[in-house]
């Protein structure tokens, strides 16, 4: 019971900090899940699960501590320890390993010095390639100890010494990796384009999976779902994509591609770009439920589609890139389903619809109202007969109204134009200059200032003499 109490306080703090809390158990297996990744992303993912998932919290945090200790990044160890200290103070991992920290800190410092000294040596020798390698080694070291800003600066210094196309790409990839960790989505997109500019088409093809993956993530991060979906769907060769599991793995590509496409594409596009896409099929095979959800949507079985997605909501909420967008994406998919569901009908009973879509404990009608209000659903609600009625467009009436309006507007405008011409030719405009204000009577205001306002007060019907 004591551990529950700790978890409760832990998640209350998380909630207060604005974090997302996932109470349902996800379908994923933590060990299996994390074994699919390599590099620094492993820790990020573990920590995220540790911070968000109630059932997996302690396991994930323990794994995160182990992960941090296997590396050199002290900050990360501290972060994970801060979490587990509150969540599970009785675990052995909750005791701060000061010895490891001191030792690692010392080692890190020594290593940094060594690499810097080496780099200095290379610089004295003026061997371009050595300098580049020196910078790269230093950058990689700085990245691994968590000093991302310094690492990024060091990577940028590689650029002047890059002599071949491959080198420039290498620089780009290193910088993008840092930016991904920092969540600088605009920066990622910019750098991808920079790398792409000077590339031959052959190289571009070879590197396509990488580019599509990182730009997909960047676009997803900045909320451009349709473009992001296109990127993931065009990832291409899965064996190449496999190499980038320090960023995401193949399952993620399938999930992202499928969900984003569901949220942003219409039925026709889903069929042609997702289901009939031979290169993306290999990815979809890894995540059969995504494929099933898309198929369901295309076949018009919206409630099953939503059900499948809903059952994986916990999983998606524990994904570092998808987490923030899950609710937006789900509601987009949901309203799309509702709209699509309604398309073939002129009239549907509200009960049928709520049977298909209503979530337990939530009012489906309120959702419908907001959809109709925002114009997403071109229909009217009939609360008496409990129907949703499509708005029938009557082009004839619309045309007639348009014609009448046009005639009316024409008349109005013609009169107004003649009136204005007459006013102008009679010199009756309100003039702005001081001289004119004397001529124009008490009603004219001379440009700016506040005093005029009361002075030149002219009340209507003030008995001022005419003529």
């Amino acid at each position, binding site marked *: 019971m004591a551990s529950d109490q700790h978890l409760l306080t832990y998640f209350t703090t998380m909630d207060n900090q604005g974090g997302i809390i996932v109470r349902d158990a996800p379908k994923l297996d933590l060990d299996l899940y994390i074994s699919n990744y390599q590099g620094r992303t492993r820790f990020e993912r573990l920590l995220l699960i540790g911070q968000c998932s109630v059932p997996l919290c302690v396991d994930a945090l323990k794994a995160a501590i182990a992960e941090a200790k296997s590396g050199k990044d002290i900050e990360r160890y501290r972060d994970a320890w801060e979490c587990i200290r509150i969540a599970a103070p009785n675990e052995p991992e909750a005791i701060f390993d000061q010895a490891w920290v001191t030792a690692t800190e010392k080692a890190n410092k020594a290593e940094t010095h060594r690499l810097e000294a080496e780099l200095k040596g290379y610089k004295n020798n003026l061997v371009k390639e050595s300098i580049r390698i020196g910078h790269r080694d230093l950058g990689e070291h700085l990245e691994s100890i968590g000093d991302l800003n310094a690492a990024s600066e060091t990577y940028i210094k590689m650029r002047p010494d890059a002599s071949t196309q491959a080198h420039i790409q290498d620089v780009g990839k290193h910088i993008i990796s840092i930016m991904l960790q920092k969540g600088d989505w605009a920066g990622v997109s910019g750098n991808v384009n920079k790398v792409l500019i000077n590339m031959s088409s052959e190289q571009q093809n070879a590197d396509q999976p990488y580019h599509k993956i990182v730009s997909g993530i960047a676009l997803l991060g900045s909320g451009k779902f349709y473009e992001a979906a296109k990127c993931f769907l065009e990832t291409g060769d899965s064996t190449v994509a496999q190499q980038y599991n320090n960023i995401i793995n193949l399952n993620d590509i399938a999930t992202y591609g499928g969900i984003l496409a569901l949220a942003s594409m219409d039925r026709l596009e889903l069929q042609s770009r997702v289901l009939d896409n031979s290169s993306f099929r290999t990815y979809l095979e890894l995540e059969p439920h995504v494929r099933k959800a898309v198929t369901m949507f295309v076949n018009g079985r919206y409630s099953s589609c939503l059900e499948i997605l809903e059952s994986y909501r916990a999983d998606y909420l524990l994904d570092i890139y998808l987490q923030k967008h899950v609710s937006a994406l789900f509601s987009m998919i949901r309203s799309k389903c509702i709209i699509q569901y309604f398309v073939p009908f002129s009239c549907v009973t509200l009960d049928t619809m709520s049977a298909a879509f209503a979530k337990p404990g939530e009012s489906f009608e309120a959702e419908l109202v907001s959809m109709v209000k925002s114009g997403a659903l071109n229909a009217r609600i*009939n609360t008496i007969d409990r129907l949703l009625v499509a708005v*029938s467009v009557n082009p004839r009436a619309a045309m007639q109204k348009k014609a009448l309006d046009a005639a009316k507007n024409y008349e109005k405008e013609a009169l107004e134009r003649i009136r204005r011409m007459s006013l102008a*030719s009679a010199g*009756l*405009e309100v003039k702005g200059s001081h001289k004119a204000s004397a001529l124009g009577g008490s*009603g004219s205001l001379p440009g700016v200032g506040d005093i005029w306002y009361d002075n030149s007060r002219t009340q*209507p019907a003030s008995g001022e003499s005419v003529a």
Partner: protein
Amino acid sequence: MDKLAPTLLAVPVEGPVDNATYDAAVKNHVQKLSKILKDQSGDIISHGSNFLELLDPSVHSLSYLAILHTLLIPGPATSVSRDTLLEKLLIFLLTFDPIQCRYAGSHLHDLFLLAGGGDILPPSAAVEALATAILRLDPTGSMLTTAHVCLARLAYSTNNVEPALQAIDKNIVFFPGMANPTEPKYLCDISLPPPAYVARETGLTGTLKPPQVMEYDLLCGLMYCSRREWAKAYAAFERIVAFPTREGGVSKIMVEAYKKWVLVSLLLKGKLVDTPSYTGASASKFYGSLAKAYTSIAVLFVADDARELKAEVDKNTTTWLDDGNGGLVKEVLAAYQKWRVLGLEQIYSKISLSEIRQQTTSAETGAPLAKDDDVEMLLQNMIISGMLSGVIEKNDDGTTFLTFLSPSTNLSEQGVAQELASSAIRLKQLQPLFKATRDRLGTSKEYIKHVIKEEKRIEKSEPDPTLAFDAHVDDEDLMGGVIATG
């Protein structure tokens, strides 16, 4: 009296004659009259009443006018009983011969202003007579005169709006003092456009300044407001809001009108529309800063929170009262719930009254209506006023509900055809206005100068020097060498 009789009793023109004869005869008559007026005004004053009895104002309009003018101005003469005199004035205003009186010049105008002054005639009669007289003189009513302004002031200040409507409903497009007045050959020509004979030169109107022009529209707007004719009020205020300006000019009346325009816009359209594109740029700036209280009301008016609207209105009570807009603001509060109900039309096709009651709030109290019956009353009022197209029905189980009717079903084919036809007629009626404006502007000195200049320019620039230059370059191929070496 015998000396005066032949001139005064003479009918200047008898039977249909051509313009030239008419013009000469009436001018002659006017000359004789003015001589009498100058030399024998004493006789007129003493015998005036007899002549007024003898004369028919629709035939001897000029004589009648001359006598009335002498008797009434500078003050009502004592020789005639005041009641008779005023009765005669009214009869004259209602029946004078408009063509003859075109020659009367400022005398007629003086009588108009006298009637419009509201001192001697009872206001309701004065408004009616003046409005009729204005339209007798200029049946199109398209020319603004000093008499118009007078009429509007009198009608609004004495609350006699109804009889003034015939004149103020007309579209004003002409103003006194327009440049390039065409000297009419014959003043009696019935094909003359109004600005040709109602002019400062003929004495039938005085000079107007911008504030007076705007004041007229403002008063019209206020009168329409008092009749709750929001569309017309909106148009009237808009004319002031978008009044032509020069060199960044703004006027106090424009700002006042803008405030009212914002409120009327809420009443008429349920939201604040943008000012017309031709609104002066600096005027718009002033509106933004000086009418903030009003625009913030407009923002809240389209939102769902009635209480916030009410709070905002209550907060600025003094502003409304200072600006004289308390009544309009009250109307806006009352209209809030109606517009919310209309908003429901975008969501529901049928809805029960109790749901309407829950979903809409009255801005007057800041709370939902207490009973469904109140809602029914509100809806019924809206349906009767034509604001809402819908019907209130009752279900078998006793729920009362509102069915929104789609607007397209309201108009039958014949209805549309009729509307279109009447629209076409109205457009055709604009033709004379077009013609008058075109004639006036087309013959103005500036325009003719411009045309001549344009013609000269075209003559001079032929052949086009740039074309010639191109041909030249082609011949010598100047660029050829450049490309070869580059």
